[in-house]
């Protein structure tokens, strides 16, 4: 290219192509991130300290806070898994109204839980709890995803839309199977099962955390580190190939990481169909950038605020700490409809 005289770039007037091109975008982003961080800290602290009968700072206070800490850690972990998984999943599928939940993970979880109760009775519900069972469940879900993605994306007719369709059909089939088994349960068994199938923070077992924390951190960390490549994948298959990114390999890797995160989250607290979608959509509105390295933290913190907030409200206002999934589904579902109707697109 012929050299042209460019005005010496001073930091203020320099033309930049970064994720936050203008000073204003910069300010807005960091203001949003700080606000979310402050809110998250408040909510975490609120969950620990609200309604704590002991005076603040005393030994008793911290003892009670410690008991509640598990639930707060779970909120933060689930928000991390769901937020990153959904944002990454929407990117590789080039679709902003999709959530990884529909790919059959949650139906698989339902079938496993229902199957245990169906074949083994109420005793079965306790049999699918425990660290090894947790690991088995996660491994099963990831294998399910690996087979689905690997086969469908590597074949001669490898096609993302087809893979999504088959995933949804499989999810529907598994869901129907679970419903069929539920029909034949006794009311008591059904009651026990229902309690486990609605996303619930109180259900989660602290002993799973030692495993799920590092797994989620590694999978999420890998997604985060590959943020620049995700940005390119968002441009679509052909543009990504043109820029020298191995589209098929990257897509499969991202989908596997997503399935690990989803499996961890679902095995911990059960299905939460709209949570990831709600968080991803809010995060894109709030962060106002395409760059995943900036969207991820906003999505995570939004997740903590939404999930932690819902948990706080349910526990301290409605005294129904268990069924946080219900409120998320209602709020998330409504949000989804309003958003679609208002914008017509995402």
């Amino acid at each position, binding site marked *: 290219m012929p050299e042209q005289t460019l005005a010496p770039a001073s930091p203020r007037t320099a033309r930049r*192509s970064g994720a936050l091109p203008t000073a204003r975008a910069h300010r807005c982003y960091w203001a949003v991130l700080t606000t979310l961080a402050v809110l998250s800290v408040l909510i975490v602290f609120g969950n620990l300290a609200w309604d704590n009968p002991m005076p603040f700072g005393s030994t008793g206070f911290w003892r009670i806070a410690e008991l509640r800490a598990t639930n707060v850690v779970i909120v933060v972990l689930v928000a991390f898994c769901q937020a990153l998984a959904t944002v990454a999943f929407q990117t590789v599928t080039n679709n902003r109204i999709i959530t990884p939940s529909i790919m059959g993970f949650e139906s698989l979880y339902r079938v496993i839980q229902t199957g245990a109760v169906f074949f083994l009775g109420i005793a079965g519900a306790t049999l699918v709890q425990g660290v090894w069972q947790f690991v088995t469940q996660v491994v099963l879900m990831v294998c399910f995803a690996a087979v689905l993605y690997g086969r469908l994306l590597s074949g001669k007719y490898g096609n993302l839309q087809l893979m999504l369709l088959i995933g949804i059909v499989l999810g529907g089939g598994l869901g129907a199977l679970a419903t069929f088994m539920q029909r034949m349960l006794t009311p008591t068994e059904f009651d026990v099962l229902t309690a486990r199938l609605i996303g619930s923070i109180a259900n989660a077992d602290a002993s799973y955390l030692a495993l799920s924390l590092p797994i989620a951190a590694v999978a999420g960390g890998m997604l985060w580190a590959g943020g620049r490549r995700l940005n390119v994948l968002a441009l679509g298959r052909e543009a990504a190939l043109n820029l020298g990114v191995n589209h098929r390999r990257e897509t499969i890797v991202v989908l596997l990481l997503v399935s690990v995160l989803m499996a961890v989250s679902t095995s911990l607290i059960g299905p939460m169909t709209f949570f990831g979608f709600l968080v991803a959509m809010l995060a894109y509105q709030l962060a106002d950038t395409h760059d995943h390295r900036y969207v991820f933290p906003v999505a995570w913190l939004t997740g903590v605020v939404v999930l932690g907030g819902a948990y706080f409200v349910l526990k301290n206002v409605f005294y129904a700490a268990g069924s946080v999934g219900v409120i998320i589904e209602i709020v998330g579902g409504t949000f989804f409809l309003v958003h679609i109707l208002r914008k017509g697109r995402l």
Partner: protein
Amino acid sequence: MITLTQVAKRYTSDVAIGPVDLTIPAGGLTALVGPNGAGKSTLLTMIGRLLGIDSGSIEIAGYDIAGTNSKDLAKIVSILRQENHFVTRLTVRQLVGFGRFPHSQGRLTPHDEEVVSRSIDFLGLRELEGRYLDELSGGQRQRAYVAMVLAQDTDYLLLDEPLNNLDMQHSVQMMQHLRRAATELGRTIVIVLHDINFAGHYADRICAVKNGTVRHFGSPDEIMRDDILTDIFDTPVEVVEGPRGRIAVYY
């Protein structure tokens, strides 16, 4: 130089591309023309390694595209397709910045920013560089994508119908930009064109494709003839001398 040796792609027993043997010399602007379904775009996407080939080999500047790392190839050849999925919250400048990905893996250096600025200015997008892609007209967006592949700084540039959806004024401007990129920047540009008159006026070489094979290859003077064009397009074409060169009249 782009060399295709016995390149073939088979879809069904009677729909196939090739075998094609073709040598496109380095430098200048080469237009691929032909009727619908002749295989122009398929040929271009195969050269740009977006579509695999069943047999034969393709070499660009001495690199075999099947054997060369896609990452390294991205510094030699860039390809732009007609439909592009666009990300809504992406500014023109950010899009053009992606063109530097093969060189810097997303970490833009001051040199990258300079190249990005130059490609934006080259296509006259300076005023628009802060706009989001969904705030642009189709023609402006098309130019932004061309600026992106230009910023990729490859010697070879493959464009699939860049004039699609452009009106008269913008088509002419786009061809002038590409003509300048070939002449001033020394790029080798291969472009799929629908309008034979654009090819006749702006291209250095015309490659006529029909039924999956290369039917004619030569300078515009050699191709812009009644008998050849009639043969390619299966419709009576009359070539007349216009005020600025030959014009094909077919209506």
